[in-house]
Structures are given as structure tokens and as C-alpha cells.
């Protein structure tokens, strides 16, 4: 029920956006967000954008995991 998918905003018309989700175009209401731009990634749930997705934070998360890697930790 809470399933939400990331999509890239390709068009904005008033408070409705069109976003590309892996090439499929879906509509997303922008009623809950006021600073969405074309090119932003948004999290789409039941036809509404819930949040903007932060690329900076995503890269930081992946960086943190990669920092865990050091030869002492190779269990497999």
C-alpha cells in the first residue's frame, strides 16, 4: 500500500507533473511539494509526489557503505 516509486520529472503543468519511471510516463500531483523542477527525482505514491529524492544523500549512503570495506572485513 505504501509502495512508492522514484521518477524523473519531465514536464510540469500547474500542480501536475509528468514523470518518467524507467521510461514509462506517469502523472504525479505536486500538491504536497512546492519547489519541484524539471529534472528532479520525486517519490511517487498513488499519483502524488511525496518527496523530492536527494541525489546528494543517495551518494552519501552508498559512500558510507563503501567505506565499510577494508580487507579485515572480508568474511566471504
Amino acid at each position: 500500500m505504501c509502495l512508492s516509486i522514484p521518477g524523473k520529472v519531465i514536464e510540469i503543468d500547474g500542480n501536475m507533473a509528468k514523470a518518467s519511471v524507467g521510461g514509462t510516463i506517469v502523472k504525479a500531483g505536486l500538491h504536497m511539494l512546492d519547489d519541484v523542477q524539471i529534472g528532479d527525482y520525486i517519490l511517487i505514491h498513488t499519483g502524488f509526489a511525496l518527496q523530492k529524492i536527494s541525489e546528494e544523500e543517495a551518494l552519501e549512503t552508498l559512500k558510507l557503505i563503501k567505506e565499510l570495506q577494508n580487507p579485515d572485513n572480508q568474511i566471504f
Partner: protein
Amino acid sequence: MKFVDEFRDKSLVLELAGKIRKISKKPVVLMEVCGGHTMAIRRFGIPSLLPSNIKLLSGPGCPVCVTSRRYIDQAVAYARRKDIIIATYGDLIRVPGSTSSLAGERGNGADIRVVYSTLDAIEMARQNPGKSLIFLGIGFETTTPSSAIAIREAQKSGTDNFLLFSAHKLMPPAMAALIDEGIKIDGYIGPGHVTAIAGADMYQELAEKYRLAIVVSGFEPVDIMQTIYMLVRQVESDEPKVEVQYRRAVTAKGNPAAKRIVSEVFEQRDDWWRGLGILKDSGLGIKSAFAQYDAEKQIEVKVEEAIEPKGCICGEVLKGIRSPLECKLFARACTPSNPVGACMVSNEGACQAFYRYGN
């Protein structure tokens, strides 16, 4: 960056599995709250990557699973009226009521339509001015804003034949109730999209009061493994607190505009949860200022006495105290194509997850 593939990187998943094995010494029981996590954990085979001292339990975060039979029965009663159109998300259609279901009523000619968005439901109401359209509003913090926006849009556009039948619920009261009931867990895998709206600060009280580790997680395998690593680290150091793994979508405060619109339209009320019973202030009803859009206030129907199915242990599965595999009906009388209980109907219910992906 696609925000999906990067978080399905097998080498990172295995790296995290190694790290978890290295730091995990104590027995640890973790519960995933969200049905989306239940499905992802089974689908990606996460339990097989964990050492045997880490146990994962499924919790009460599947809206279709916790919704009462009485709600389904009342929706069925609405659907039987010729002057009403029912609009709903697809999940609810096949949930059995006491003696019927929305799918069954549709077979009998009731006008029941599946919508992608509440805005589609508003449009349907506009196109059918001679009938009332009732949207079945179920779901947690993630989904409630869509319903609140629909009521505001109906008001703005003068769509007076749009009504909402609310079974919206709040997650934290159920997370607290499980601990109050004596369910022993060390930490929660926190629901990512609920928290994208509500904000991670909502769990501070819960973490402090019950000394619980809570890490809000994304839904890809790397996300879930990193979350388990963070939870185990908290348990090992005996420093339970609220952390966010899903930082690309979740902040401490959530989405303030969404929270504002929800609080304008809805107010807290006591609500019933399968397995947990009535929990104080755990549900959301429509405020009296918007009563003209409240199906419960506007349309009275006679509802049959609710009967729970015999032998179904969905309520105990939702509390993590029994596994779907312990149910006598599982995979015999109860399957996804012919479900007896709500936990098998929903594609995020624990019973369906076990049925589809095994233990």
C-alpha cells in the same frame, strides 16, 4: 543515478552481510513494520544472508491486513446501493468481508472502480453527477495526504457527490501497542514511506520509552541490509535510538505541507486493528468542518454482524507471534487465488509473501 539499480548492487549486499556477521554477537529480534518491507525481505531472500542469531518478524504495517471486516462489510453495503459508485485502490477489492467482498459485489453488478489516484475518483464523481461516489480511504501516513487532498479538491471544485469512507490509521500507536502486549523485539525496521511524510522525529518517544532501536529503511536490498547493520550495531553497543538509513527520501520533519493538509481535514480517533484490537487515537476520522464529504455521516446503511474467519491466524501473524507456516489453512484452504484471511489477500501481507517466496 536511478535510485534503484545502485541499491540492488550484489557486491554491496554481500559486503554488508559480511559486516553484519562480524559485529553481531547477541541474539537479536527485529520487526519490519511495513508490508512493503515484508515483501522485499522475502523477495530478495534477506533472511538467508543473516546469521542465525538474527531473527526477522513481520509486523502490522499492511493496511489491508489490519482493516476490520466491519469496514469491508460497510463498503459492501454501500456498493449494493444503485445510487452509489465505489472507487478504491486495487488492494481492497478481493479482501473477504463477513459474507461477501467488493469483488463479489462487482460480479453481482455493483459499480466498483479501481483508481490509481484520488484525483481520478474526483473526476469520476464529476462525470456521474446523479450518483454519490464513495472513495475507500485506507492506508497509513503515506496514503492519507492523497485522501486529504481529494477532499480539498472536491470542495474547491464543488464536487458535492464525492465522499470519503476513512479507515486511515497511524503507525506509532500500533508500534507501541505491540511492545505493551509483551512482544519481545530489540528494534524496528522503520517504514520508509510513512516516515517520508511524517518525519523520523515521530519515533523519538517510542525509542526512548521502550529502549528500542529504530532505523528508517529504504526498500532495496542494499537499503535493508544496511538498516539491519545499523540496528545490530545499536543493539551490540546497547544504545538504542532513532536513525535514518533512507536519507535520500526521509528527513527528521518529513513533509510539512502534507502533514498540514492532513491535520486540516482529519482528526485522531480510536480505531480497531486486526490482532491488536482498539487502539487509542490510532485512526483518522474526517473533521466535522468537512462532514459533507464523510460517507459515514452522510449515508446510513445497515451493516451485517462481522464474522472473523475460523482458523485464520492473521491477527497473530500481524503481531509477529506466529508464522504464516503455523496456520492450518496456509497453502491449503487459503491461497492468494482463494484467500481466507486478509494477510493472504494483500500483495504485501506476510502470508502471501511466504506463499510466493517461501520462508
